């Protein structure tokens, strides 16, 4: 057998360090709270309410990304035009902007000082300290993940399939419904998972726009500030477990359907 070079062992060691770096804190956190404390925590109405709020605001954000992001992703995947790169960079902006800045930016158009804020006000829509505000923030930070995943999905479908469909008599809409969508829906599901995962983890922007009603990360932070590590750990465990379980279910559903087709 050929002897492995030192570089190989350096690479392996680096990999092990990274694995340990990610896993040790997570395992420690998960293992720290006792079973009885966990049981007690999940009976705490505030905890349940905040986790539920986190999940459904993130879900709503993903739904909005799906509705508005899918056509945009399709256009970006299928056409080339001057300024396309600019649009792609704009879509990536929410990823690179510091989170509190996102919150401040959203608040600055939501107030009565801004025409948009005035329109919202007249429509009776409140952003500051409301579920609407949370959904707005989560959509803002989650959108790029959805658009990019779905754009890649569309790009991997040869345009010729759509051409053939059109030449066989299908309109643009029928072609999308019968060819493009069935071939791209897995990337859409991945996009939805990525977008909602990103949304659930958002703290910095939400805490500025809506401290109340409390989403799970804000509750976590409050428990940590007020009572310390011990009281925030169980909430964290529940949040992480429920999210992982949800994503796992989505993933399994995707794979099962993929085998069928």
């Amino acid at each position, binding site marked *: 057998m050929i002897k492995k070079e030192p570089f190989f062992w350096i690479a392996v060691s680096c990999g092990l360090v990274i694995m340990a770096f990610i896993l040790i804190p997570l395992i420690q956190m998960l293992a720290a709270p006792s079973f009885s404390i966990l049981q007690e925590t999940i009976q705490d109405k505030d905890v349940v309410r905040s986790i539920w709020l986190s999940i459904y605001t993130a879900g709503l954000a993903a739904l909005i990304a799906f509705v508005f992001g899918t056509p945009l992703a399709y256009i970006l995947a299928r056409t080339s035009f001057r300024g396309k790169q600019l649009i792609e960079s704009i879509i990536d902006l929410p990823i690179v902007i510091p989170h509190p800045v996102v919150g401040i930016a959203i608040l600055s158009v939501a107030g009565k000082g801004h025409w948009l804020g005035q329109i919202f006000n007249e429509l009776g829509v409140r952003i500051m300290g409301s579920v609407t505000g949370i959904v707005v923030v989560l959509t803002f930070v989650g959108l790029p993940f959805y658009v990019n995943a779905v754009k890649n999905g569309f790009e991997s479908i*040869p345009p*010729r*399939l759509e*051409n*053939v*469909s*059109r*030449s*066989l*008599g*299908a*309109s*643009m809409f*029928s072609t999308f419904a*019968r*060819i493009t969508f*069935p*071939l791209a829906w897995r990337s859409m599901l991945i996009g939805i998972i990525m977008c909602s995962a990103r949304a659930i983890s958002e703290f910095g922007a939400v805490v500025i726009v809506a401290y109340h009603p409390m989403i799970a990360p804000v509750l976590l932070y409050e428990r940590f500030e007020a009572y310390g590590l011990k009281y925030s750990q169980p909430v964290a465990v529940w949040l992480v477990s429920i999210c992982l379980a949800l994503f796992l279910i989505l993933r399994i559903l995707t794979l099962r359907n993929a085998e069928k*087709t």
Partner: protein
Amino acid sequence: MIAIENVNIRLGEFDLREINLSIEKNEFFILMGPTGAGKTVLLEAIAGLIRVDTGRIVVGGRDVTALSPEKRGISIVYQDYSLFPHLTVRENITYGLHFHRMPKNEADKRFGRLVDELDLAHLLHRLPTNLSGGENQRVALARALIVNPQVLLLDEPLSALDPGFREDLRKGLKRLHEHTEATFLMVTHDFSEALSLADRAAVMDGGQIKQVGGMKEIFQKPESTFVADFVGMKNLFTASFHDTKAAIDGLEVELGRSPDNGHGYIAIRPEDVVLSRKKLHSSMRNSFRGKVTDVADQGLYYEVGITVEGVTFKSLITKSALFDLEVGEGSDICLSFKATAIHPF
């Protein structure tokens, strides 16, 4: 059937300029040219998949220039066949029927006939991913033809196949053309493919049509050096076949086999025609004495025209061979070629 008038397409890196083409109903027309000549672009323009900047495309007497692809009644088969990977073979073939008002019994009849003709019955429940190249091609043809298109566009349908299968599928394609009313327009860069399939053809290069005409005309009277080079085979004759022999006017040549699908032509590449001062005693079955009527300098080679009993052959020889053989206009010479060098079609 198809009339393309002054069509110009600008695609940034590449243009189609002043395309004029007229194709008859039920014709098998071939579009030839090297890679990058713009053949596929022209096909996609006819299908309505690429917008034409100026000019007109008329199909079946109807101006379709501004019509979207689904309203044109033109089917397309791509080089990679582009089968829908998530649909079974049956669903692929019947895809177009969703969008065409066709009585159920007629649709069933068409489906049955195409499945029979293309030998697809055993594949109907399979997904395209695990089909062979030839099977893919047959499914793509059935899918394109089931909607009864006025025109079938074929983009190098044979080039992705093993050479062994190509001959069979070429015959299949020819048979299919005879059994349908559709006008076939096929792109290829293979000249022998063109010869065995089409009556008429156009040669394209650099986004322009260089020559349009009958196969024989393009063969014998290339209008430009590009077409001449592209065509390559200079010796094309009308011939009548009997047994293993072919008669060109009065001259009889030995084929060594009976032609399987001869349509009255034979072709011999000029480099296969060997010249000598005396009759060669070799395995070459065809050997004639003739007179040199023409010597043309072609750079590395000389093209020599030799007339035997009123039939003129072209031969390519090197400068040194020209010198050794003392070839000049009017000199007597012997020419020979193998039976296998003759392409009947």
